[in-house]
């Protein structure tokens, strides 16, 4: 188990929902996928979801699945409406310039 704040530092990430305190979110694992139904079918609560998808339904998927944080790879940049919805649903959004491959490698290393 690691803190999201530690992971954000390791990936040079930015918390684009600063109202959500990354030091209070614990990560047990991660899930990497851009297919929303696959995420809903297989992701588990407590996992960081790494994706480049950035539309509104991504927030709904995270909310329904119990995912506490979405990591947007390759600087994928969601609209303000998406950020607002994430805050409403208490989901933290993090942006990083790294690829999904790099982001998952770093998370995997930190967790193991």
């Amino acid at each position, binding site marked *: 188990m690691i803190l999201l704040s530690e992971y954000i530092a390791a990936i040079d990430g930015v918390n684009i929902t600063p109202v959500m305190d990354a030091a209070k979110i614990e990560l047990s694992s991660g899930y990497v996928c851009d297919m*929303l139904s696959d995420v809903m079918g297989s992701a588990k*609560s407590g996992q960081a979801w790494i994706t480049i998808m950035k539309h*509104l*339904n*991504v927030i709904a998927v995270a*909310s*329904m*699945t119990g995912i506490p944080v979405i990591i947007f790879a390759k600087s994928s940049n969601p609209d303000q409406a998406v950020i607002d919805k994430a805050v409403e649903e208490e989901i933290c959004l993090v942006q990083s310039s790294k690829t999904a491959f790099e982001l998952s490698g770093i998370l995997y290393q930190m967790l193991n």
Partner: protein
Amino acid sequence: MQDCAAVRSDMAEYWNIESGHEEAIMTFFDNRPVADVVLESEITEKDFVTSGRGSADVKNTLKRLGIGPEILRRVAVASYEAEINVAAHSNGGKMESSIFDDMIHLRFTDRGPGIANIEQAMVPGYSTADDLVREMGFGAGLGLPNIKKNSDALHIVSDYGKPTMVEIVIFY
């Protein structure tokens, strides 16, 4: 298994009931009791912005009733997949959620055009989704399989050129 109230003889039907729940499910569908709490919402064709609100309402209501996170996740995922299915594949429809003391019953009914082959639609990876739906990250052919995986009972009545009805039961 028969469900005389819902099935028309000219339509195809699919049932999946998780083992151990057969009797409770039979009793429920035979009696079709009315719940204390019933939520209803419309689902508009190809509207992926408001689709999901019905599921969010259900999830929040169950959360307020003290239902645990794993059951919440199962209900939310099954419900959201079904809602997205109506938006993605039908001419629009509605969702009705009946919340009981020990279970939830979700019913999705649409205005067609129906499922030509329900068994095929249940195969993971099979999808008839259009490009718009796929661009959204849906259309992986996992919607109905995900609903099946997360529910204690799944009942589908449909046919090509007909409305579709999907019913889901999840025990707490």
